[in-house]
């Protein structure tokens, strides 16, 4: 198992070896985001900007106007929050080909706590016109997403996780933008998940299977743009839909699916995610358990949602 950030550093270094337009701008976190791999292997593609995220976004935009396709390297929280006005005006409103690589996203960030846990990024980035929003499931999908994004002509936001998860996809998996993918079949309930949470959601589905509940699991790597028709067709006439995300229950994947399903009747949606409160610093297992995102806790919540569903 490889962490997505390692895949990110290695893949960028590889692309940079033949593509002189690829540059990585770092906010003094290269050893964490693993942009240091680029600094070691392709030093000309690496630009240290220092602890100055707003400046970094401004410079990335400026370079993009001369043909560069810059990637940003820092913790996601300092992009979607600290530098959001710069991303909004200089990147999103200009359609600049800046790749916003959000490292250490979500709840699990090596015990740094609530200041560093970006649990609102989907809500913010989804609402931004022109923005493509992607959360790869594992190391293999991450590699494919990075290659796709490197060629994309507009702004891209990619949510990366700090720690490795059990892969969801085979090594040769090819990411298709906007396409939801059913990663498990089942007819009792549909679980929709995104990012590395999909790996834990699959584990939850296996726990549910032991209790005789067969869950379909849909992975949504792209939150925006989304092929609505494809998602609705995968859901079919399933009445019990549950979203699971390492994000606030407000405005993220759950919000997205609620918006979509509100346009048709007959589905009961349960949104599993972080309650409307800040979290804390602690080891991953503790956080997943306490905040309801471990496979066991997700399985429990799904069971509870089925109990209260009129069938």
């Amino acid at each position, binding site marked *: 198992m490889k962490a997505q950030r390692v895949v990110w550093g290695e893949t960028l270094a590889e692309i940079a070896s033949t593509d002189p337009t690829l540059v990585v701008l*770092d906010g*003094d*976190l*290269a*050893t*964490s985001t693993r942009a*240091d791999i680029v*600094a*070691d292997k392709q030093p000309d593609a690496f630009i*240290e900007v*220092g*602890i*100055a995220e*707003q*400046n970094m976004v401004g410079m990335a935009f400026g370079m993009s106007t001369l043909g560069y396709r810059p990637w940003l390297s820092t913790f996601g*929280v*300092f992009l979607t*929050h*600290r530098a959001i006005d710069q991303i909004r005006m200089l990147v999103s409103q200009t359609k600049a080909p800046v790749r916003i690589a959000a490292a250490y996203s979500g709840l699990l960030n*090596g*015990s*740094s*706590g*609530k*200041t*560093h846990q970006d649990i609102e990024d989907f809500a913010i980035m989804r609402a931004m016109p022109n923005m493509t929003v992607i959360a790869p499931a594992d190391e293999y999908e991450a590699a494919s997403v990075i290659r796709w994004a490197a060629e994309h002509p507009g702004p891209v936001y990619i949510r990366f996780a700090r720690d490795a998860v059990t892969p969801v996809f085979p090594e040769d998996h090819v990411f298709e933008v906007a396409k939801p993918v059913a990663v498990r079949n089942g007819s009792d309930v549909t679980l929709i998940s995104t990012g590395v949470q999909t790996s834990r959601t699959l584990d939850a589905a296996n726990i549910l299977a032991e209790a005789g509940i067969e869950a379909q699991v849909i992975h949504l790597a792209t939150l925006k743009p989304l092929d609505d028709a494809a998602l609705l067709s995968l859901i079919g006439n399933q009445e019990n839909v549950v979203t699971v995300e390492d994000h606030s229950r407000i405005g993220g994947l759950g919000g997205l699916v609620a918006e979509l399903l509100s346009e048709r009747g007959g589905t009961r949606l349960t949104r599993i995610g972080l309650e409307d409160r800040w979290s*804390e*610093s*602690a*080891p991953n297992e*503790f*956080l997943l358990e*306490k905040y309801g995102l471990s496979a066991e806790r997700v399985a429990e919540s799904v069971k509870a949602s089925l109990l209260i569903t009129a069938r």
Partner: protein
Amino acid sequence: MTAVDHRSHDHVELDTLARRARWHIVNTVATSKAGHIGGPLSAADLLTALYFRQLRIDPTNPSNPDRDRFILSKGHCAIGLYSVLALRGYFPEEELATFDHGDSRLQGHPDMLLTPGVDASTGSLGQGLSAGAGMALAAKRLEKDFHTWVMVGDGEIEEGMIWETVISAPRFRLDNLTLIIDLNGLQQYGWPRGEGDRFDRSEPMGHVDLEAVFRGFGWQTLSIDGHDWEEILTAYATANERRGVAGTPTVIIANTAKGHGISFTRGTYKWHNGIATTEELELAHSELIAELLLEGNDR
């Protein structure tokens, strides 16, 4: 080791406290398997002197409205602050063992809602000086006599928000505000010092004449050795005396070494954070604590 009799009793006591703080830092991070080392160690003397000799505070009444305020803007150095707060009596030293564990009062970054003695929440770099300016301005308007102290890192001051406050604080005549820059010569990654050696990183502010810059913005500047008790205490007293009379804020540019106090962490950029091995912990203990026991200074 300097001979004991060359140092004043006061300095010996501070030295003992700082050694114990440093031991708490490296030991707690090793036990919790999370946290930073280099920045807390470089700041340990500055924090010890501040909490034990300068701040007008009462650990039994941490929310006294007239207390001096302190903001650790470089919030990743939380364990340094917690260690000194524990030694100063804000909470039991044993509680340090809960650092970074779930349900703890001691979060990875300082949390003013949880930890007694923490005056502002920090963790996203660059925000503490503005918070301090607000406290200092409110103190003036409310005719309160306390002093507000803010500590930043030398990498942290690459953040633009710092400079927004540097420009505006003299306009507000905030002579009750002091900025301490822990100029330890390293940030997390930064820039290589020269060709070829990627482990030899250059100083974040190596190309900046900080004294001239701050003077240009209208600040009083004091440059000191941040590991010399005499210089630290004198600078603190000078900054504090100007409260209510000078009309300009003070910056103390404290020359320190990242990781100071432990041989294998000093000046080593990869010890920005890190978990000491059992052998490293033993070495740190022998350098910090065993010497105290020999000298009979451990209280």
